[in-house]
């Protein structure tokens, strides 16, 4: 990857709202060049999507429940874990899915409105898949940091005096 591409990628990863004109100035390119890089990276699915990091616990009645589920599965001949992974990630409740090393195979992150909704998903949809051997569900109690961003208020406030030598 070219140096400019990498630099642009890091900038938008950190701040998806940074506009093309600003990026162009920062990396010393023309706006057209930056737009071309972004188009290319989007087309190649390197930039997969642009989204905001939301602290839902601050939104009334929208708090919801998130669970992380450790799933043990039997891999299948020829397709390994991919087929069962696909069957799982297609459920819209599944927020994230990772294949991991260690005591279990798949790590599933599920969003739901209530604990019983998640319990229902695990017992009716996840555990009933043929290759799933076992599941362990952990409910998330509090988010301290997500995607590199600390949720605690005041952490990122500018604590400097306004004018200094």
């Amino acid at each position: 990857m070219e140096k400019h591409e990498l630099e642009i990628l890091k900038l938008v990863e950190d701040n998806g709202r940074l506009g093309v004109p600003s990026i162009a100035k920062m990396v010393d390119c023309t706006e057209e060049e930056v737009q071309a890089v972004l188009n290319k990276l989007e087309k190649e699915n390197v930039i997969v999507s642009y989204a905001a990091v939301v602290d839902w616990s601050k939104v009334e009645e929208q708090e919801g429940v998130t669970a992380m589920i450790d799933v043990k599965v039997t891999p299948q001949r020829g397709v390994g874990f991919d087929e069962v992974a696909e069957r799982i990630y297609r459920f819209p409740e599944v927020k994230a899915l990772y294949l991991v090393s260690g005591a279990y195979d798949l790590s599933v992150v599920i969003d739901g409105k209530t604990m019983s909704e998640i319990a229902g998903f695990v017992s009716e949809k996840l555990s009933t898949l043929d290759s799933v051997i076992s599941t362990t569900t952990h409910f998330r109690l509090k988010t301290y940091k997500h995607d590199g961003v600390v949720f605690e208020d005041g952490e990122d406030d500018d604590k400097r005096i306004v004018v200094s030598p």
Partner: protein
Amino acid sequence: MSTPFVRKTNRLSDAVQHIQPSGIRRFFDMASTMEDVISLGVGEPDFVTPWNVREASIDSMERGYTAYTSNPGILELRQEISKYLDERFETPYDPEREIIVTAGASEAIDIAVRSTVNPGEEVIIVEPGFVSYAPVVSLAGGRPVSIGTKKENEFKLTKEELEAAVTPNTKAVMISFPNNPTGAVMTKEELAPLVDVIERHDLLVFSDEIYAELSYDNEHCSLAALPGMKDRTILISGFSKAFAMTGWRLGFVCAPADITAAMLKIHQYILMCASTPAQFGALEALRSGRDDVERMITSYKQRRNYIVKSFAEIGLSCHVPGGAFYAFPSIENTGMSSDQFAEGLLKEEHVAVVPGNVFGEGGEGHVRCSYATSMESLETALDRMGRFLKRHSS
């Protein structure tokens, strides 16, 4: 009843009455009373000290390292400083005889001047420059002599300018590149001609290289690294800028052994030693802070590019500052003085910048804009400055 009395003598010293309070103070007072000010007036990084450094300092306190250290600082820290200076800037110093850990570069400037300058001796101050140089020289009884660097030379010091300021009374010259407030840097090739003047007149050099790491287009060249210069240079630096540690007050000063011994005498009487927890933090910064420094440099450079190009768009002429985190655009074509411009911008658009005149000779006609602030703030500040300029263009 107490006896009424008339004070016979002025109880303040002549020396302190002779120096002026910093011109920055006035803008601080004005800006502090306003809401929603976007400040480009801050002379420090917008990064918080990296967590591993904070954690190392906390850990040292938990383990009970709360006593004085040796006067020049923890030996391990001086060894790391020595290694760092040698590897980064090719300026090797003996950790046992040539390095003192100080309470910020500010203390380093003071003890460097006080251990070398006699009353009446002149110290050439290259300006625009940091606000403390001339007052520190005055307080030591020396005579500050200003040289104003010029916009045409991108605020670099020329051999001719230096030569013209030297008198038989000149003891030393105070130089700082990368420069606060101009952002100017001087390459090895640009520094080399100065050496001849310095040697011919047998001058000492106080080289404040606190912004050395923040050099974006070329590798920083230390004055002490030039042939023959180590023996006449007092190198001043610290952790504030490159490692985002301003509030820790931790710097260091490196000099030939005789000068270091002299500085240590003052240091031991006025300070004993630099803050112990800060020294432990600095040790961690040098041992494993490189990635953080690189990350911050990249981010400053991007914002430097942004601000310079944006100034051009709104019609402010600005040389490309090669280092530090300041841009120093000319505001001459507005017809305003730097004070008027800064005050107007603050009152009308709530953007704080520092008028160039507070940085001494050569600063008038410019304002210092620190780009060590978030991109979001920079974008808004630039919009507001554009509006201000449009309103005041004749």
